[in-house]
C-alpha cells in the first residue's frame, strides 16, 4: 500500500496542472497515469488556447459572452466568468514555463481567429498547441520531481460513507494490484471518445474517470452534450484543426458553394462547432455532399503559410486521405470529438463526494454547456486543473489518512480480475462489443437525433451489456496485459454510454450539440437546466435537475 496526500489520476494537462499546483503548495502529490504523461490526449488539441488579454484591447467579459452564447446558454455563468478572468494569467504562466507560443512582429504573443468568437484571442503553437503545452508541463513535473506512477491503471476508487480515501490501481508492467491511500483524489482522466465509432479521440479516451465517479454515486451532468467536430477525415476519424478555418479555409459542397453563407451569414465557417456540423450534415443529407463528406479548402492560403501554421494537418491529409491540401480540397465530415458533460463539480473541482475532485474533460463545471468553443478546452483543463490542485492542497492539510483503508480493497480487485481471467468459452473478445457500441452511438446519438433512434440505442446497449458479462480475456498472463485493460475500459465505456443515452432521452428540446429532429426548438421555459444522472443505492440510474446559473447574460436567440 502507498500513501500520498493527493492522488491525481491522469497526466494530461488538467492532471499535471493540478499536480504541479498542489506540489508547489507543499502537498505530497502523486500522479497515476495509464500511459506515459506525454502520450496523454491533450496532445491532440491542435488549434490553440483562448484568453482575453487586456493589454491587447480584449475583455474577459467578451470572451465570457462568446462562451455562453456558444454553450447555447447551458453553461454556468459563474464558472465561465472565472475561467475567462483567469485565462490571461494562465496563458502567461505557461509561457513563462517555456511554451513556444507564436509571436507577432513585436515578439509578443500572437493570436489567430477561432470559431464562435468575435475577436481573435486564440494563442497558439503552430497546429500542435496541445502537444506544446503538454510537453512543457511535463518538463515542469520532471523539474519538481513529482512522483508519477507511469503506466498504472486505476481499477476502482476507495469511497466509504461519502468520502474518498484513495484508489486501487494496477501496475501494468507487473500486473500487481495496489491500494493507494490518499486524502484527496483528483480525477483528470479526459474524455470518452471511444464510446463512439469513429471518433477523433485516442484509443485511451475511454471515460474511466466518469465511470469511476458514476459507480460511486457522483452525478454525471449534461452527458447528452456530445460535440461533433466539423472537420474530421472519413478514413479514420482523424481531426483536422479548426485552425484551418481560423486561418481562412472555406467549406464547400458538391456544387462548389461556400454553403455556410446560408446557415451563418456573419460568422460563416467560423460559427460555433455545433452550427457548422449541423450545416454540413444537412448539406450531406440533402444530396450536396461527396461520398458522405463536404470539402475543406485551404488552397488560397498558400503553401508558405500552410507549412508554417498548418503543417501537421497537411501531413494528416497526405497520410490518411491521400490529399495534399496545398493542391486540392480535402473531404471532411462531422465526427465525434468532445464530451461537454461529465462529473459534476463546483468551481474548485469538488464533486459531491468529500475528497473527490475532477478537472478537464472528465468534469462538468459547467463551462461548455451545450457546445464548447474551439480552444476553450485547453483553457478549461489548465484553469480548473490548477483550481482543483489548489483547493485539494488546502483541504488535505486538515485531513488524515483513514485507518480503515487496508489491503482488503486491493484484494477485492485482485479477485475480480482473476474471475475475469478465469472465464473461458461461450464469450467473445472485447473488440466487437466495443465496435458495435461505437457504431450504435454514432448512428443514434450523432449530430441529429430523435426519440426512436435513442430508444433503439438504449435497447442495443442492454444487449451489449449482456455480451460484456460473458466477455473473455485471451491473455492470461500478468505482464503488460493490455487485453485485460481494454476489457476493463470497455466496462467503463458501457456505463458512460448509458449516461449519454439517458441524458439525451431526458432532454426534450434541441440545444447546442443535442439536436432532435422531432423537437427542433430550444425550450428555455422547461429545459434551461442541467440534467444530472447518478446511481441510487440499488445501482439504478436516477435523474435529477439543476438550474443553470445566470449572472449577467439572459438567454437570447442564437445566430451567427
Amino acid at each position, binding site marked *: 500500500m502507498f500513501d500520498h496526500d493527493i492522488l491525481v489520476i491522469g497526466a494530461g494537462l488538467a492532471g499535471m496542472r493540478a499536480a504541479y499546483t498542489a506540489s508547489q503548495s507543499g502537498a505530497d502529490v502523486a500522479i497515476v497515469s495509464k500511459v506515459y504523461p506525454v*502520450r496523454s490526449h491533450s*496532445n*491532440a488539441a491542435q488549434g490553440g488556447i483562448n484568453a482575453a488579454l487586456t493589454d491587447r484591447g480584449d475583455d474577459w467579459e467578451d470572451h465570457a459572452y462568446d462562451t455562453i452564447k456558444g454553450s447555447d446558454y447551458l453553461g454556468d455563468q459563474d464558472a465561465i466568468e472565472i475561467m475567462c478572468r483567469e485565462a490571461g494569467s494562465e496563458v502567461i504562466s505557461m509561457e*513563462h514555463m517555456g511554451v513556444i507560443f507564436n509571436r507577432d512582429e513585436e515578439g509578443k504573443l500572437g493570436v489567430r481567429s477561432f470559431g464562435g468568437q468575435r475577436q481573435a484571442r486564440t494563442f497558439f503553437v503552430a497546429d*500542435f498547441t496541445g502537444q506544446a503545452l503538454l510537453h512543457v508541463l511535463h518538463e515542469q513535473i520532471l523539474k519538481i520531481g513529482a512522483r508519477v506512477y507511469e503506466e498504472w491503471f486505476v481499477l476502482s476508487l476507495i469511497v466509504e460513507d461519502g468520502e474518498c480515501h484513495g484508489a486501487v490501481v494496477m501496475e501494468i508492467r507487473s500486473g500487481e494490484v495496489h491500494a493507494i491511500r490518499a486524502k484527496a483524489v483528483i480525477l483528470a482522466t479526459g474524455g470518452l471518445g471511444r464510446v463512439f465509432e469513429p471518433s477523433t479521440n485516442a*484509443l485511451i479516451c475511454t471515460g474511466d474517470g466518469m465511470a469511476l465517479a458514476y459507480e460511486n454515486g457522483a452525478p454525471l451532468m449534461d452527458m447528452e452534450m456530445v460535440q461533433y467536430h466539423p472537420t474530421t477525415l472519413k478514413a479514420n476519424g482523424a*481531426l483536422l484543426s479548426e485552425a484551418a478555418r481560423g486561418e481562412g479555409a472555406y467549406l464547400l459542397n458538391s456544387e462548389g458553394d461556400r454553403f455556410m453563407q446560408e446557415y451563418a451569414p456573419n460568422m460563416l465557417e467560423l460559427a460555433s462547432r455545433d452550427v457548422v456540423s449541423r450545416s454540413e450534415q444537412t448539406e450531406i443529407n440533402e444530396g450536396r455532399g461527396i461520398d458522405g463528406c463536404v470539402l475543406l479548402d485551404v488552397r488560397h492560403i498558400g503553401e508558405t503559410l500552410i507549412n508554417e501554421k498548418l503543417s501537421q494537418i497537411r501531413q494528416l491529409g497526405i497520410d490518411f486521405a491521400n490529399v495534399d491540401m496545398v493542391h486540392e480540397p480535402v473531404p471532411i465530415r462531422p465526427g465525434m470529438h468532445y464530451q461537454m458533460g461529465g462529473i459534476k463539480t463546483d468551481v474548485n473541482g469538488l464533486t459531491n463526494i468529500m475528497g473527490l475532485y475532477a478537472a478537464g474533460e472528465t468534469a462538468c463545471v459547467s463551462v461548455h454547456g451545450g457546445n464548447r468553443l474551439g480552444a476553450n478546452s485547453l483553457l478549461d483543463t489548465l484553469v480548473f486543473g490548477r483550481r482543483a490542485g489548489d483547493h485539494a492542497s488546502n483541504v488535505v492539510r486538515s485531513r488524515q489518512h483513514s485507518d480503515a483503508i487496508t489491503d482488503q480493497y486491493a484484494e477485492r480487485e485482485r479477485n475480480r480480475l482473476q474471475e475475469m481471467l478465469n472465464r473461458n468459452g461461450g464469450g467473445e473478445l*472485447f*473488440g466487437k462489443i466495443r465496435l458495435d457500441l461505437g457504431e450504435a452511438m454514432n448512428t443514434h446519438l450523432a449530430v441529429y437525433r430523435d426519440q426512436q433512434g435513442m430508444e433503439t440505442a438504449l435497447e442495443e446497449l442492454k444487449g451489449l451489456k449482456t455480451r460484456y458479462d460473458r466477455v473473455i480475456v485471451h491473455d492470461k498472463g500478468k505482464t503488460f496485459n493490455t487485453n485485460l485493460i481494454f476489457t476493463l475500459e470497455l466496462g467503463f465505456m458501457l456505463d458512460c454510454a448509458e449516461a449519454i443515452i439517458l441524458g439525451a432521452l431526458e432532454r426534450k428540446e434541441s440545444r447546442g450539440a443535442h439536436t432532435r429532429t422531432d423537437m427542433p426548438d430550444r425550450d428555455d421555459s422547461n429545459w434551461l437546466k442541467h440534467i444530472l444522472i447518478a446511481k441510487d443505492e440499488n445501482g439504478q440510474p436516477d435523474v435529477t435537475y439543476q438550474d443553470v446559473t445566470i449572472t449577467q447574460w439572459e438567454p437570447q436567440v442564437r445566430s451567427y
Partner: protein
Amino acid sequence: MQVTLNVRRYDPDSDQPVPYDQEYSVDVDENATVLDGLIKVREEVDGSLALRCSCRSAICGSCSMRVNGQAILACNTKLTDVVLEGGRVDIEPAGNMGLIKDLVVEFDIFWDKVRAVEPWLQPEGEEPESEYIAPNDDMVHLAGVMGCIMCGACVSDCTVLEVDRNFLGPAALAKSYRFVADPRDDADESRLDELNESGGVWDCTRCMMCVEVCPKGVDPMGRIMSLREKVIDAGHTETYGARHAEAFTRMVRHSGRVDELQLPIQTFGMFNVKEMIKLIPVGVRSQLAGKRPPIMHQKNPGMSNVRRIFNRVEDKR
C-alpha cells in the same frame, strides 16, 4: 487486401521466455496502416498481442516499432508501403530498449537520458509581468524541435547507443538543443559544458539513422551538429571532438580529402602517449584487414573544385 503480419513475440510469463515469430493473416483496407492491421489482430484474432498505441495520428508517440528492420510509427505507416514480396510484413519491437512483452519495450533508458539534460526552461532574473519578448522566427525554429513526440524511433535505431549505453542519444540531445536555442533560457553555459563531456555531442558518429527514422522531421543529428558548433563557440576548443572537427576541415581544405593517418595524430596530439598507444592495435588490425590508409597522402585531383566549395560556404556565412 490480404497481408501477413509476421510479428516478433515475447512472453516473459511463459515457461520458456524466448522471442519467437508468429504470423497473422489479416484482410485489410488498401489505406490501412500497420497499426490498423495490428489492432485488427488483437481485437479479432488474438487478444494476447501486446503493443502500445493511442492517438492513431502520429502525435502521441506510443506506437514506435521496427517494420522490416527499421523504426517507424505504426500509425502513420501504410501497409502497402512496407509490404514485402509474398504479402509479408516483418514487425519487431523497437531496438536499444529492453523487451517487456511482444512489441512493448522498456522506455526507462529513454526517459533517464531525457532527464539527464535537465529538460526544463532555466531563465535567470525576475520573470516579466507579461510574456517574454521573443522573435517569432526563433519560436518557429524551435517548433521544429518541439515537434518531437518522444516516440523513441531515433533511440531505437541509433547505431551509437547500440554499442555505447553512455551516449545521451538523439532524442535527449535534440531536447537539449531546444533549450540552448531558446532565447529565454539562460543556462546555455552549464548545458554546453555538460554536452561537451563524454556521452555528449561528440559521441555521435553522424550515421543519419535518427534523421531517417524520425517521423516528425525533428532532425536530431542536425541539432547535435548545431550543438557542436555552440560547444566550440562557448570556448571548448581543446576537446578531442573539437580538434577532430578542426583537423578534418583543415585537411579537406588543404588536399580535398582526409589524411586518415594524420587525423588521429592531430586530434589527440603527437605527444599524447596514452592515446597514441591505444591506436597501435587499431593500426595493426587495419593493416591485417588490408585497410591501412596510404603512408603518402595524396591530393584530390579535383582540388580546385573543393576549394571553390569552401569559398562558397564561407562567403555565405
